[in-house]
Protein backbone atom coordinates (compact mmCIF):
# COMPACT_ATOMS: atom_id res chain seq x y z
CA UNK A 1 0.00 0.00 0.00
CA UNK A 2 2.82 2.35 0.94
CA UNK A 3 4.67 1.68 -2.31
CA UNK A 4 1.51 2.63 -4.15
CA UNK A 5 1.60 6.08 -2.59
CA UNK A 6 5.33 6.36 -3.23
CA UNK A 7 6.11 6.15 0.47
CA UNK A 8 8.71 3.79 1.87
CA UNK A 9 8.36 2.32 5.37
CA UNK A 10 11.79 3.82 6.10
CA UNK A 11 10.54 7.27 5.21
CA UNK A 12 7.45 6.76 7.30
CA UNK A 13 9.39 5.66 10.39
CA UNK A 14 11.88 8.50 9.97
CA UNK A 15 9.10 11.09 9.80
CA UNK A 16 7.28 9.52 12.72
CA UNK A 17 10.46 9.79 14.78
CA UNK A 18 10.84 13.45 13.79
CA UNK A 19 7.18 13.91 14.69
CA UNK A 20 7.73 12.28 18.06
CA UNK A 21 10.69 14.57 18.76
CA UNK A 22 8.74 17.69 17.85
CA UNK A 23 5.90 16.27 19.91
CA UNK A 24 8.23 15.93 22.90
CA UNK A 25 9.17 19.60 22.63
CA UNK A 26 5.52 20.61 22.29
CA UNK A 27 4.74 18.49 25.35
CA UNK A 28 7.49 19.96 27.58
CA UNK A 29 6.72 23.52 26.55
CA UNK A 30 2.95 23.26 26.82
CA UNK A 31 3.39 21.55 30.19
CA UNK A 32 5.39 24.55 31.41
CA UNK A 33 2.81 26.97 30.01
CA UNK A 34 0.02 25.05 31.72
CA UNK A 35 1.76 25.07 35.13
CA UNK A 36 2.51 28.78 34.87
CA UNK A 37 -1.00 29.60 33.70
CA UNK A 38 -2.53 27.52 36.49
CA UNK A 39 -0.95 29.50 39.29
CA UNK A 40 -0.08 32.88 37.78
CA UNK A 41 -2.99 33.25 35.36
CA UNK A 42 -0.45 34.53 32.89
CA UNK A 43 0.36 33.22 29.46
CA UNK A 44 4.11 33.21 29.35
CA UNK A 45 4.82 34.60 25.87
CA UNK A 46 8.56 34.58 26.59
CA UNK A 47 8.47 30.78 26.91
CA UNK A 48 9.90 30.42 23.41
CA UNK A 49 12.59 33.00 24.07
CA UNK A 50 13.50 31.22 27.30
CA UNK A 51 13.84 27.99 25.34
CA UNK A 52 16.17 29.79 22.92
CA UNK A 53 18.06 31.21 25.86
CA UNK A 54 18.49 27.72 27.33
CA UNK A 55 20.05 26.51 24.07
CA UNK A 56 22.33 29.55 23.94
CA UNK A 57 23.46 29.21 27.54
CA UNK A 58 24.37 25.58 26.83
CA UNK A 59 26.27 26.60 23.69
CA UNK A 60 28.05 29.45 25.49
CA UNK A 61 28.99 27.06 28.28
CA UNK A 62 30.48 24.64 25.80
CA UNK A 63 32.36 26.96 23.47
CA UNK A 64 32.60 30.52 24.83
CA UNK A 65 32.99 30.53 28.55
CA UNK A 66 36.53 29.14 28.55
CA UNK A 67 37.71 32.10 26.46
CA UNK A 68 35.84 34.62 28.58
CA UNK A 69 37.37 33.37 31.79
CA UNK A 70 40.75 32.43 30.36
CA UNK A 71 40.65 28.81 31.51
CA UNK A 72 40.81 26.71 28.35
CA UNK A 73 39.89 23.51 30.16
CA UNK A 74 36.80 25.00 31.81
CA UNK A 75 33.82 24.04 29.68
CA UNK A 76 30.31 23.00 30.54
CA UNK A 77 29.72 19.75 28.68
CA UNK A 78 26.31 18.46 27.59
CA UNK A 79 25.59 16.46 30.75
CA UNK A 80 26.40 19.36 33.06
CA UNK A 81 24.38 21.66 30.83
CA UNK A 82 21.39 19.37 31.12
CA UNK A 83 21.35 20.00 34.88
CA UNK A 84 22.87 23.47 35.17
CA UNK A 85 21.02 25.29 32.38
CA UNK A 86 17.54 24.55 33.76
CA UNK A 87 18.74 25.78 37.14
CA UNK A 88 20.20 28.98 35.64
CA UNK A 89 16.99 29.54 33.70
CA UNK A 90 14.88 28.86 36.78
CA UNK A 91 16.91 31.51 38.62
CA UNK A 92 16.31 33.91 35.73
CA UNK A 93 12.60 33.11 35.91
CA UNK A 94 12.60 33.74 39.64
CA UNK A 95 14.10 37.19 39.12
CA UNK A 96 11.54 38.04 36.41
CA UNK A 97 8.68 36.91 38.62
CA UNK A 98 9.88 38.77 41.69
CA UNK A 99 10.71 42.02 39.90
CA UNK A 100 8.06 42.28 37.19
CA UNK A 101 5.31 39.68 36.89
CA UNK A 102 4.40 40.03 40.56
CA UNK A 103 3.19 43.57 39.93
CA UNK A 104 0.60 42.41 37.40
CA UNK A 105 -1.42 39.81 39.30
CA UNK A 106 -4.15 42.26 40.24
CA UNK A 107 -4.56 43.43 36.62
CA UNK A 108 -6.25 42.03 33.54
CA UNK A 109 -4.64 38.84 32.14
CA UNK A 110 -3.65 40.58 28.97
CA UNK A 111 -0.98 42.67 30.67
CA UNK A 112 0.93 39.53 31.60
CA UNK A 113 0.83 38.48 27.97
CA UNK A 114 2.05 41.89 26.80
CA UNK A 115 4.86 42.08 29.36
CA UNK A 116 6.18 38.63 28.53
CA UNK A 117 5.85 39.45 24.82
CA UNK A 118 8.11 42.46 25.40
CA UNK A 119 10.58 40.31 27.31
CA UNK A 120 10.58 37.81 24.45
CA UNK A 121 11.46 40.57 21.97
CA UNK A 122 14.28 41.83 24.19
CA UNK A 123 15.81 38.36 24.64
CA UNK A 124 15.46 37.51 20.94
CA UNK A 125 16.87 40.87 19.89
CA UNK A 126 19.85 40.67 22.22
CA UNK A 127 20.89 37.23 21.01
CA UNK A 128 20.40 38.35 17.42
CA UNK A 129 22.59 41.35 18.08
CA UNK A 130 25.32 39.29 19.73
CA UNK A 131 25.40 36.18 17.57
CA UNK A 132 23.55 37.01 14.32
CA UNK A 133 20.86 34.82 12.81
CA UNK A 134 23.06 32.28 11.03
CA UNK A 135 22.93 29.79 13.89
CA UNK A 136 25.62 27.95 15.80
CA UNK A 137 26.04 24.19 15.83
CA UNK A 138 26.18 22.24 19.06
CA UNK A 139 27.59 18.70 18.82
CA UNK A 140 25.74 15.82 20.46
CA UNK A 141 27.68 14.24 23.35
CA UNK A 142 29.98 11.39 22.30
CA UNK A 143 27.97 8.77 24.12
CA UNK A 144 24.91 9.58 22.02
CA UNK A 145 26.52 10.03 18.63
CA UNK A 146 25.92 7.49 15.91
CA UNK A 147 22.87 5.38 15.29
CA UNK A 148 21.31 2.04 16.08
CA UNK A 149 20.60 0.09 12.89
CA UNK A 150 17.47 -2.03 12.94
CA UNK A 151 18.23 -4.41 10.09
CA UNK A 152 15.00 -6.37 10.31
CA UNK A 153 13.02 -3.44 8.91
CA UNK A 154 15.95 -1.71 7.26
CA UNK A 155 15.94 1.55 9.21
CA UNK A 156 18.50 3.42 11.27
CA UNK A 157 17.58 5.15 14.51
CA UNK A 158 19.89 8.02 15.53
CA UNK A 159 20.79 7.52 19.19
CA UNK A 160 20.48 11.15 20.16
CA UNK A 161 16.90 11.39 18.93
CA UNK A 162 15.86 8.28 20.84
CA UNK A 163 17.45 9.83 23.93
CA UNK A 164 15.54 13.09 23.49
CA UNK A 165 12.21 11.30 23.26
CA UNK A 166 13.01 9.09 26.26
CA UNK A 167 14.27 11.84 28.58
CA UNK A 168 11.42 14.19 27.63
CA UNK A 169 8.90 11.51 28.44
CA UNK A 170 10.61 10.88 31.75
CA UNK A 171 10.54 14.58 32.67
CA UNK A 172 6.92 15.03 31.55
CA UNK A 173 5.60 12.01 33.38
CA UNK A 174 7.54 12.67 36.56
CA UNK A 175 6.14 16.22 36.54
CA UNK A 176 2.69 14.72 36.10
CA UNK A 177 3.36 12.32 38.98
CA UNK A 178 4.53 15.09 41.31
CA UNK A 179 1.55 17.29 40.53
CA UNK A 180 -1.14 14.63 40.60
CA UNK A 181 0.12 12.20 43.22
CA UNK A 182 2.22 14.01 45.87
CA UNK A 183 1.47 16.42 48.68
CA UNK A 184 3.41 19.25 47.01
CA UNK A 185 1.32 18.65 43.92
CA UNK A 186 -1.83 18.78 45.99
CA UNK A 187 -0.83 22.25 47.25
CA UNK A 188 -0.16 23.27 43.69
CA UNK A 189 -3.55 22.08 42.52
CA UNK A 190 -5.23 23.73 45.46
CA UNK A 191 -3.40 26.96 44.57
CA UNK A 192 -4.72 26.75 41.04
CA UNK A 193 -8.24 26.20 42.32
CA UNK A 194 -8.38 28.76 45.14
CA UNK A 195 -5.19 30.55 46.20
CA UNK A 196 -6.82 32.65 48.94
CA UNK A 197 -8.24 29.65 50.74
CA UNK A 198 -4.91 27.84 50.49
CA UNK A 199 -3.10 30.82 51.98
CA UNK A 200 -5.62 30.83 54.84
CA UNK A 201 -4.43 27.30 55.64
CA UNK A 202 -0.93 28.66 56.20
CA UNK A 203 0.71 27.76 52.90
CA UNK A 204 3.14 30.35 51.51
CA UNK A 205 1.29 30.89 48.24
CA UNK A 206 3.44 33.77 46.88
CA UNK A 207 6.52 31.57 47.24
CA UNK A 208 4.72 28.72 45.53
CA UNK A 209 3.79 31.02 42.65
CA UNK A 210 7.41 32.12 42.25
CA UNK A 211 8.61 28.52 42.26
CA UNK A 212 5.96 27.48 39.75
CA UNK A 213 7.15 30.19 37.35
CA UNK A 214 10.77 29.22 37.95
CA UNK A 215 9.93 25.57 37.26
CA UNK A 216 8.13 26.44 34.03
CA UNK A 217 11.04 28.55 32.81
CA UNK A 218 13.44 25.80 33.90
CA UNK A 219 11.51 23.33 31.75
CA UNK A 220 11.80 25.70 28.77
CA UNK A 221 15.57 25.91 29.38
CA UNK A 222 15.77 22.12 29.59
CA UNK A 223 13.97 21.78 26.27
CA UNK A 224 16.45 24.30 24.84
CA UNK A 225 19.43 22.16 25.85
CA UNK A 226 17.80 19.05 24.40
CA UNK A 227 17.09 20.89 21.15
CA UNK A 228 20.58 22.39 20.78
CA UNK A 229 22.21 19.34 19.07
CA UNK A 230 19.19 18.69 16.83
CA UNK A 231 18.45 22.16 15.51
CA UNK A 232 20.91 24.97 14.96
CA UNK A 233 21.18 27.19 18.01
CA UNK A 234 19.76 30.42 16.63
CA UNK A 235 17.86 33.37 18.10
CA UNK A 236 14.65 32.64 16.20
CA UNK A 237 14.34 28.98 17.16
CA UNK A 238 11.93 29.71 20.00
CA UNK A 239 9.59 32.24 18.45
CA UNK A 240 8.61 29.94 15.62
CA UNK A 241 8.00 27.11 18.05
CA UNK A 242 6.02 29.04 20.64
CA UNK A 243 3.18 29.93 18.27
CA UNK A 244 2.69 26.26 17.45
CA UNK A 245 2.78 25.50 21.18
CA UNK A 246 0.05 28.10 21.70
CA UNK A 247 -2.09 26.25 19.17
CA UNK A 248 -1.32 23.01 21.01
CA UNK A 249 -2.43 24.61 24.26
CA UNK A 250 -5.66 25.85 22.67
CA UNK A 251 -6.35 22.36 21.31
CA UNK A 252 -5.61 20.59 24.58
CA UNK A 253 -6.92 23.16 27.02
CA UNK A 254 -4.77 24.10 29.99
CA UNK A 255 -6.85 22.46 32.68
CA UNK A 256 -5.06 19.13 32.65
CA UNK A 257 -1.37 18.25 32.94
CA UNK A 258 -1.77 14.88 31.26
CA UNK A 259 -3.87 16.58 28.59
CA UNK A 260 -1.03 18.97 27.78
CA UNK A 261 1.49 16.13 27.48
CA UNK A 262 -0.71 13.88 25.35
CA UNK A 263 -1.87 16.68 23.05
CA UNK A 264 1.73 17.76 22.51
CA UNK A 265 2.89 14.27 21.57
CA UNK A 266 -0.17 13.50 19.48
CA UNK A 267 0.09 16.68 17.45
CA UNK A 268 3.81 16.08 16.85
CA UNK A 269 2.96 12.67 15.41
CA UNK A 270 0.14 14.06 13.27
CA UNK A 271 2.50 16.72 11.93
CA UNK A 272 5.07 13.99 11.14
CA UNK A 273 2.45 11.93 9.28
CA UNK A 274 1.34 14.97 7.31
CA UNK A 275 4.94 15.42 6.16
CA UNK A 276 4.80 11.93 4.68
CA UNK A 277 1.43 12.02 3.02
CA UNK A 278 0.93 15.68 2.11
CA UNK A 279 4.10 17.70 2.80
CA UNK A 280 2.66 21.03 1.60
CA UNK A 281 0.20 21.06 4.48
CA UNK A 282 2.63 20.11 7.25
CA UNK A 283 3.27 23.69 8.39
CA UNK A 284 -0.42 24.48 8.79
CA UNK A 285 -1.91 21.16 9.89
CA UNK A 286 -1.82 22.00 13.61
CA UNK A 287 -3.60 25.30 13.00
CA UNK A 288 -6.25 23.54 10.93
CA UNK A 289 -6.78 21.03 13.73
CA UNK A 290 -7.07 23.95 16.12
CA UNK A 291 -9.80 25.49 13.98
CA UNK A 292 -11.71 22.19 13.87
CA UNK A 293 -11.41 21.71 17.63
CA UNK A 294 -12.67 25.26 18.19
CA UNK A 295 -15.73 24.47 16.09
CA UNK A 296 -16.53 21.13 17.69
CA UNK A 297 -15.29 21.48 21.24
CA UNK A 298 -14.53 25.14 22.03
CA UNK A 299 -13.12 24.40 25.50
CA UNK A 300 -10.40 22.18 24.05
CA UNK A 301 -10.01 18.41 24.22
CA UNK A 302 -9.14 18.26 27.92
CA UNK A 303 -10.31 21.71 28.93
CA UNK A 304 -12.92 23.09 31.25
CA UNK A 305 -14.34 26.54 30.64
CA UNK A 306 -13.66 28.71 33.65
Amino acid at each position, binding site marked *: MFELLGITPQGLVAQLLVGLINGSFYAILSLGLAIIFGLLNIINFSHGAQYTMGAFVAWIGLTQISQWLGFPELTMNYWFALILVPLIMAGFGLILERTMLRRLYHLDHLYG*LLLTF*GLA*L*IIEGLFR*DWYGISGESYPAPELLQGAIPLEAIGIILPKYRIWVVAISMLVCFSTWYVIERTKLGAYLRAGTENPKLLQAFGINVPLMISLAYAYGVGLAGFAGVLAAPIFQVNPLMGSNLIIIVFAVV*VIGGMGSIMGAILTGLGLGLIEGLTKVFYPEASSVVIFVIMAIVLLLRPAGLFGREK
Partner: protein
Amino acid sequence: MHKNTKLLYLILLLIAALLPLQDFIYLVFAMKVLCFALFACAFNLLLGFTGLLSFGHAAFFGSAAYITAYFCKELGAAPEIGILLGVFGSALLGLLIGALAIRRQGIYFAMVTLALSQMIYFLAVQLPYTGGEDGIQGVPRGTLFGFIDLSNDVHMYYFVLAIFVFGFALIMRTVYSPFGQILKAIRENEPRAVSLGYDVDRFKLICFVISAALSGLAGSTKSLVFQLATLTDVHWHMSGEVVLMTLLGGMGTILGPVVGAGIVVSLQNYLANIGSWSTIATGFIFVVCVLAFRRGVVGEISAFFKIKH
Protein backbone atom coordinates in the same frame (compact mmCIF):
# COMPACT_ATOMS: atom_id res chain seq x y z
CA MET B 1 -17.78 65.16 21.92
CA HIS B 2 -16.16 68.05 23.74
CA LYS B 3 -15.93 71.35 21.86
CA ASN B 4 -12.18 71.67 22.47
CA THR B 5 -11.63 68.15 21.19
CA LYS B 6 -13.39 69.04 17.95
CA LEU B 7 -11.13 72.08 17.61
CA LEU B 8 -8.07 69.92 18.24
CA TYR B 9 -9.05 67.51 15.45
CA LEU B 10 -9.58 70.44 13.06
CA ILE B 11 -6.16 71.87 13.86
CA LEU B 12 -4.50 68.48 13.42
CA LEU B 13 -6.26 68.00 10.08
CA LEU B 14 -5.14 71.45 8.96
CA ILE B 15 -1.52 70.66 9.88
CA ALA B 16 -1.75 67.35 8.02
CA ALA B 17 -3.19 69.09 4.96
CA LEU B 18 -0.39 71.68 4.93
CA LEU B 19 2.37 69.11 5.34
CA PRO B 20 3.39 68.95 1.64
CA LEU B 21 4.29 72.67 1.79
CA GLN B 22 7.40 72.04 3.85
CA ASP B 23 10.35 69.75 3.23
CA PHE B 24 11.46 69.02 6.76
CA ILE B 25 9.26 65.92 7.06
CA TYR B 26 9.63 63.44 4.25
CA LEU B 27 6.23 62.75 2.63
CA VAL B 28 6.72 59.00 2.33
CA PHE B 29 7.42 58.95 6.05
CA ALA B 30 4.21 60.88 6.73
CA MET B 31 2.26 58.43 4.58
CA LYS B 32 3.78 55.53 6.49
CA VAL B 33 2.70 57.10 9.78
CA LEU B 34 -0.84 57.63 8.42
CA CYS B 35 -1.12 54.00 7.26
CA PHE B 36 0.05 52.65 10.59
CA ALA B 37 -2.08 55.15 12.49
CA LEU B 38 -5.15 53.85 10.66
CA PHE B 39 -4.06 50.28 11.37
CA ALA B 40 -3.61 51.06 15.07
CA CYS B 41 -6.96 52.90 15.27
CA ALA B 42 -8.69 49.89 13.72
CA PHE B 43 -6.95 47.63 16.20
CA ASN B 44 -7.89 49.92 19.08
CA LEU B 45 -11.56 49.61 18.14
CA LEU B 46 -11.22 45.95 19.10
CA LEU B 47 -8.83 46.17 22.05
CA GLY B 48 -9.64 49.53 23.55
CA PHE B 49 -13.38 49.66 23.01
CA THR B 50 -14.44 46.02 23.06
CA GLY B 51 -11.70 44.57 25.26
CA LEU B 52 -10.63 41.90 22.75
CA LEU B 53 -6.87 41.45 22.41
CA SER B 54 -6.17 40.10 18.94
CA PHE B 55 -2.60 39.04 18.45
CA GLY B 56 -3.10 38.33 14.77
CA HIS B 57 -4.01 41.60 13.13
CA ALA B 58 -1.04 41.34 10.77
CA ALA B 59 -3.09 38.70 8.92
CA PHE B 60 -5.61 41.36 7.82
CA PHE B 61 -3.08 44.10 7.20
CA GLY B 62 -0.82 41.76 5.24
CA SER B 63 -3.37 39.83 3.23
CA ALA B 64 -5.00 43.06 2.06
CA ALA B 65 -1.56 44.35 1.08
CA TYR B 66 -0.96 41.17 -0.94
CA ILE B 67 -4.39 41.26 -2.61
CA THR B 68 -4.03 44.91 -3.64
CA ALA B 69 -0.47 44.39 -4.82
CA TYR B 70 -1.47 41.30 -6.81
CA PHE B 71 -4.44 42.90 -8.55
CA CYS B 72 -2.68 46.19 -9.28
CA LYS B 73 0.52 44.61 -10.55
CA GLU B 74 -0.40 41.29 -12.17
CA LEU B 75 -3.88 42.17 -13.43
CA GLY B 76 -3.42 45.91 -13.93
CA ALA B 77 -6.36 46.91 -11.74
CA ALA B 78 -6.92 50.59 -10.92
CA PRO B 79 -5.74 51.60 -7.41
CA GLU B 80 -9.26 52.21 -6.10
CA ILE B 81 -10.36 48.76 -7.31
CA GLY B 82 -7.24 47.16 -5.82
CA ILE B 83 -7.89 48.76 -2.45
CA LEU B 84 -11.58 47.80 -2.48
CA LEU B 85 -10.67 44.19 -3.23
CA GLY B 86 -8.05 44.22 -0.46
CA VAL B 87 -10.56 45.57 2.04
CA PHE B 88 -13.16 43.04 0.93
CA GLY B 89 -10.63 40.20 1.25
CA SER B 90 -9.53 41.20 4.73
CA ALA B 91 -13.14 41.65 5.86
CA LEU B 92 -13.92 38.14 4.66
CA LEU B 93 -10.85 36.79 6.42
CA GLY B 94 -11.91 38.73 9.51
CA LEU B 95 -15.29 37.04 9.38
CA LEU B 96 -13.67 33.58 9.25
CA ILE B 97 -10.99 34.19 11.90
CA GLY B 98 -13.34 36.19 14.08
CA ALA B 99 -16.05 33.52 14.03
CA LEU B 100 -13.50 30.98 15.25
CA ALA B 101 -11.75 33.22 17.76
CA ILE B 102 -14.81 34.53 19.60
CA ARG B 103 -15.58 30.99 20.65
CA ARG B 104 -12.91 31.44 23.35
CA GLN B 105 -12.39 34.29 25.79
CA GLY B 106 -9.54 36.31 27.21
CA ILE B 107 -6.09 34.87 26.88
CA TYR B 108 -7.27 32.07 24.59
CA PHE B 109 -8.70 34.65 22.19
CA ALA B 110 -5.23 36.14 21.83
CA MET B 111 -3.64 32.74 21.25
CA VAL B 112 -6.23 31.66 18.68
CA THR B 113 -5.87 34.84 16.64
CA LEU B 114 -2.07 34.55 16.81
CA ALA B 115 -2.13 30.93 15.65
CA LEU B 116 -4.58 31.59 12.81
CA SER B 117 -2.55 34.56 11.60
CA GLN B 118 0.55 32.37 11.65
CA MET B 119 -1.34 30.04 9.34
CA ILE B 120 -1.95 32.98 6.97
CA TYR B 121 1.79 33.70 7.19
CA PHE B 122 2.64 30.14 6.13
CA LEU B 123 0.14 30.41 3.28
CA ALA B 124 1.83 33.64 2.17
CA VAL B 125 5.17 31.81 2.18
CA GLN B 126 3.85 28.90 0.11
CA LEU B 127 1.16 30.17 -2.27
CA PRO B 128 2.28 30.78 -5.85
CA TYR B 129 0.68 34.26 -6.04
CA THR B 130 2.65 35.91 -3.26
CA GLY B 131 6.19 35.66 -4.54
CA GLY B 132 7.54 33.80 -1.49
CA GLU B 133 10.49 35.47 0.20
CA ASP B 134 10.60 38.33 -2.32
CA GLY B 135 6.98 39.31 -1.91
CA ILE B 136 5.35 41.39 -4.64
CA GLN B 137 7.63 44.25 -5.63
CA GLY B 138 7.27 47.16 -7.99
CA VAL B 139 3.52 47.56 -7.60
CA PRO B 140 2.39 50.47 -9.79
CA ARG B 141 0.53 53.20 -7.94
CA GLY B 142 -1.59 53.83 -11.03
CA THR B 143 -4.00 56.69 -11.68
CA LEU B 144 -6.84 57.24 -9.27
CA PHE B 145 -10.30 57.38 -10.94
CA GLY B 146 -8.45 57.51 -14.24
CA PHE B 147 -7.15 61.10 -13.92
CA ILE B 148 -5.11 61.59 -10.71
CA ASP B 149 -1.56 60.36 -11.17
CA LEU B 150 -0.54 58.74 -7.90
CA SER B 151 3.12 58.28 -8.79
CA ASN B 152 3.41 61.90 -7.70
CA ASP B 153 4.11 61.84 -3.94
CA VAL B 154 1.97 64.90 -3.20
CA HIS B 155 -1.07 63.41 -4.94
CA MET B 156 -0.45 60.12 -3.17
CA TYR B 157 -0.16 61.91 0.16
CA TYR B 158 -3.56 63.56 -0.16
CA PHE B 159 -5.07 60.27 -1.25
CA VAL B 160 -3.63 58.54 1.85
CA LEU B 161 -4.77 61.42 4.06
CA ALA B 162 -8.30 61.13 2.64
CA ILE B 163 -8.32 57.40 3.33
CA PHE B 164 -7.07 57.97 6.85
CA VAL B 165 -9.69 60.63 7.59
CA PHE B 166 -12.39 58.33 6.20
CA GLY B 167 -11.24 55.42 8.38
CA PHE B 168 -10.78 57.61 11.45
CA ALA B 169 -14.24 59.17 11.05
CA LEU B 170 -15.80 55.73 10.64
CA ILE B 171 -14.15 54.53 13.84
CA MET B 172 -15.26 57.64 15.71
CA ARG B 173 -18.79 57.22 14.40
CA THR B 174 -18.75 53.58 15.56
CA VAL B 175 -17.40 54.40 19.01
CA TYR B 176 -19.94 57.15 19.72
CA SER B 177 -22.92 55.26 18.27
CA PRO B 178 -25.32 53.15 20.36
CA PHE B 179 -23.54 50.16 18.84
CA GLY B 180 -20.26 51.48 20.32
CA GLN B 181 -21.90 51.85 23.72
CA ILE B 182 -22.84 48.18 23.64
CA LEU B 183 -19.26 47.30 22.71
CA LYS B 184 -18.07 49.22 25.76
CA ALA B 185 -20.62 47.41 27.90
CA ILE B 186 -19.18 44.11 26.67
CA ARG B 187 -15.69 45.34 27.53
CA GLU B 188 -16.70 46.35 31.04
CA ASN B 189 -18.79 43.34 31.95
CA GLU B 190 -19.60 40.68 29.41
CA PRO B 191 -21.91 38.52 31.58
CA ARG B 192 -23.98 41.59 32.39
CA ALA B 193 -24.27 42.50 28.72
CA VAL B 194 -25.50 38.96 28.08
CA SER B 195 -28.00 39.21 30.91
CA LEU B 196 -29.32 42.46 29.45
CA GLY B 197 -30.28 40.49 26.41
CA TYR B 198 -27.55 41.45 23.96
CA ASP B 199 -26.29 38.84 21.55
CA VAL B 200 -22.69 39.46 22.64
CA ASP B 201 -21.10 37.13 20.10
CA ARG B 202 -22.78 38.94 17.23
CA PHE B 203 -21.56 42.34 18.44
CA LYS B 204 -18.04 41.02 18.94
CA LEU B 205 -18.02 39.50 15.47
CA ILE B 206 -19.30 42.66 13.77
CA CYS B 207 -16.68 44.70 15.60
CA PHE B 208 -14.00 42.18 14.62
CA VAL B 209 -14.97 42.39 10.95
CA ILE B 210 -15.00 46.22 10.97
CA SER B 211 -11.59 46.20 12.62
CA ALA B 212 -10.25 43.64 10.14
CA ALA B 213 -11.62 45.57 7.15
CA LEU B 214 -10.07 48.86 8.30
CA SER B 215 -6.76 47.10 9.05
CA GLY B 216 -7.00 45.81 5.50
CA LEU B 217 -7.62 49.34 4.24
CA ALA B 218 -4.41 50.39 5.98
CA GLY B 219 -2.52 47.43 4.52
CA SER B 220 -3.77 48.01 0.97
CA THR B 221 -2.86 51.69 1.13
CA LYS B 222 0.58 50.81 2.50
CA SER B 223 1.22 48.43 -0.39
CA LEU B 224 0.51 51.26 -2.85
CA VAL B 225 2.62 53.81 -0.95
CA PHE B 226 5.68 51.55 -0.81
CA GLN B 227 4.72 49.66 -4.00
CA LEU B 228 5.48 46.50 -2.08
CA ALA B 229 3.83 43.65 -0.19
CA THR B 230 6.13 41.29 1.70
CA LEU B 231 6.17 38.66 4.40
CA THR B 232 6.97 41.37 6.96
CA ASP B 233 3.38 42.59 6.56
CA VAL B 234 1.92 39.26 7.69
CA HIS B 235 4.56 38.34 10.27
CA TRP B 236 3.62 38.19 13.96
CA HIS B 237 6.11 41.00 14.68
CA MET B 238 3.66 43.25 12.80
CA SER B 239 0.82 42.07 15.04
CA GLY B 240 3.01 42.91 18.03
CA GLU B 241 3.85 46.34 16.64
CA VAL B 242 0.23 47.37 16.30
CA VAL B 243 -0.41 46.24 19.87
CA LEU B 244 2.52 48.37 20.97
CA MET B 245 1.34 51.46 19.08
CA THR B 246 -2.06 51.19 20.75
CA LEU B 247 -0.64 50.48 24.19
CA LEU B 248 1.94 53.26 24.00
CA GLY B 249 -0.50 55.84 22.65
CA GLY B 250 -3.28 54.87 25.02
CA MET B 251 -5.74 52.00 24.80
CA GLY B 252 -9.34 53.08 24.53
CA THR B 253 -8.55 56.68 23.60
CA ILE B 254 -9.48 58.02 20.18
CA LEU B 255 -6.23 59.78 19.38
CA GLY B 256 -3.89 57.44 21.27
CA PRO B 257 -3.16 54.96 18.48
CA VAL B 258 -2.29 57.84 16.12
CA VAL B 259 0.25 59.18 18.60
CA GLY B 260 1.55 55.68 19.29
CA ALA B 261 1.95 54.96 15.57
CA GLY B 262 3.85 58.22 15.12
CA ILE B 263 6.27 57.42 17.93
CA VAL B 264 6.84 53.79 16.97
CA VAL B 265 7.34 54.52 13.25
CA SER B 266 9.77 57.37 14.01
CA LEU B 267 11.68 55.17 16.42
CA GLN B 268 11.95 52.40 13.86
CA ASN B 269 13.16 54.80 11.20
CA TYR B 270 15.75 56.05 13.64
CA LEU B 271 16.91 52.59 14.75
CA ALA B 272 16.55 50.82 11.41
CA ASN B 273 20.26 50.90 10.66
CA ILE B 274 21.54 49.49 13.92
CA GLY B 275 20.76 45.82 13.58
CA SER B 276 18.47 44.28 16.11
CA TRP B 277 18.10 47.34 18.28
CA SER B 278 14.68 48.18 16.92
CA THR B 279 13.42 44.81 18.20
CA ILE B 280 15.09 45.33 21.56
CA ALA B 281 13.72 48.86 21.88
CA THR B 282 10.23 47.62 20.96
CA GLY B 283 10.44 44.98 23.67
CA PHE B 284 11.74 47.48 26.18
CA ILE B 285 8.89 49.92 25.52
CA PHE B 286 6.43 47.07 25.96
CA VAL B 287 7.88 46.26 29.37
CA VAL B 288 7.94 49.89 30.50
CA CYS B 289 4.39 50.54 29.26
CA VAL B 290 2.98 47.51 31.03
CA LEU B 291 4.81 48.12 34.30
CA ALA B 292 4.57 51.87 34.66
CA PHE B 293 2.63 53.52 31.87
CA ARG B 294 -0.53 51.55 31.31
CA ARG B 295 -2.68 54.50 30.28
CA GLY B 296 -0.35 55.46 27.44
CA VAL B 297 0.67 58.94 26.27
CA VAL B 298 -2.81 60.24 25.43
CA GLY B 299 -4.35 58.46 28.40
CA GLU B 300 -1.90 60.13 30.78
CA ILE B 301 -2.45 63.55 29.19
CA SER B 302 -6.24 63.16 29.38
CA ALA B 303 -5.96 62.04 32.99
CA PHE B 304 -3.79 65.08 33.73
CA PHE B 305 -6.34 67.47 32.23
CA LYS B 306 -9.19 65.27 33.49
CA ILE B 307 -10.74 64.96 30.03
CA LYS B 308 -13.38 62.27 29.90
CA HIS B 309 -13.85 60.14 26.83
